[in-house]
């Protein structure tokens, strides 16, 4: 087929393109993914029984703020990476901000604490399960955002995969806040971050394979 024939073929009866495909895909991916993650959390792990009281504590909202701010940054990065020729700009530079904030809080909490308490603050009662549970809860959104990205056109596949994975990880961590009873900043600053990093690294590794077009 000559190029002119291909052009004629592509232009013949080319259907009008609907606007807002990117927004629709991401709203659907995040909405359905979060709903499944909440269901998974409620069924497998259970909502923490003292949730109403916990929401009155500032530390609960600090805990929520970490994944929520990372989620916002990851969405900003992913939607830029989903379109050819859109620069990601300063989005990656925002990533260290919430991380530094939780680490400063952690350091302050550890310094103020009784030396005998420090290990307990870091490990809590669930340090091993925390990252694994966050990774598990990130899976529905992970599937959703990779589906969304596959319908778009990323050109930097590993980076697009990493931001998609971080998006899923931070959404998973957000949902995990509804179950997890841990309230110490050093715990959040270590195991929550590790839990969110697992899908982010998985996304970076899978991106070049899953997102190619």
């Amino acid at each position: 087929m000559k190029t002119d024939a291909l052009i004629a073929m592509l232009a013949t009866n080319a259907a009008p393109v609907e606007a807002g495909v990117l927004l629709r895909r991401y709203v659907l991916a995040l909405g359905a993914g979060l709903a499944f993650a909440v269901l998974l959390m409620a069924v497998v792990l259970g909502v923490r029984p003292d949730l109403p009281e916990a929401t009155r504590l500032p530390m609960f909202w600090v805990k929520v703020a970490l994944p929520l701010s990372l989620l916002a940054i990851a969405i900003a990065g992913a939607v830029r990476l989903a379109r050819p020729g859109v620069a990601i700009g300063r989005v990656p530079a925002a990533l260290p901000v919430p991380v530094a904030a939780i680490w400063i809080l952690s350091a302050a909490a550890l310094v103020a604490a009784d030396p005998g308490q420090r290990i307990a603050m870091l490990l809590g009662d669930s340090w091993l399960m925390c990252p694994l549970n966050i990774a598990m809860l990130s899976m529905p959104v992970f599937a959703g955002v990779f589906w969304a990205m596959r319908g778009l056109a990323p050109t930097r596949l590993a980076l697009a995969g990493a931001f998609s994975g971080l998006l899923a990880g931070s959404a998973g961590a957000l949902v995990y806040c509804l179950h997890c009873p841990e309230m110490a900043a050093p715990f959040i600053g270590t195991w929550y971050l590790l839990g969110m990093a697992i899908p982010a690294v998985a996304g970076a590794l899978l991106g070049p394979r899953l997102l190619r077009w």
Partner: protein
Amino acid sequence: MGAAREYMRSRERVGAQEDHLKDLLLRGLSGDGVAYHAFLKALSAFLRAFLRGRLARVPDEVEDLVQETLLAIHNQRHTYDASQPLTAWMHAIARYKMIDFLRRRAGREAMNDPLSDDDELLAASDEEAREARRDLATLLERLPDRQRLPILHVKIQGLSVAETAKLTGLSESAVKIGVHRGLKALAAFVRK
């Protein structure tokens, strides 16, 4: 002075071209087939020059890549945002397809014998450089009927979606999906 004026003039030319192409594409995206045809035609000329300059060592594969990139731009046209510079969008797609092509080619050459110098000399003098080596029409034959027939009737013979639905017994939405998925599948065949 003269160089600066020349530079400004070339910037203006590029800017005017960008505006013209963008106008054609936006009209094409809202369903104007004539404008879309003109957009693809102009785009193919730019792509050919862009790729020929960068793939000087494999001139007879340039047209393959022009076609592959045109197909990619068509399949991804929904990712263009009107607030974005069109050149940046087209350039990113062309660059992505070129790098993908070079990687595939490097993979192939690692398995096969590399071209000898004699072959390269012959390839460079090939008069038929503008013919694509890979035939998309042949790849089209490999699509399943539910994709091949909608493309054949709607995109090649120019029948309407309704006429194609009647002819093939498929529903109208199945015809539309068949065209859409078929062109994506064609792009996937090309990558292999």
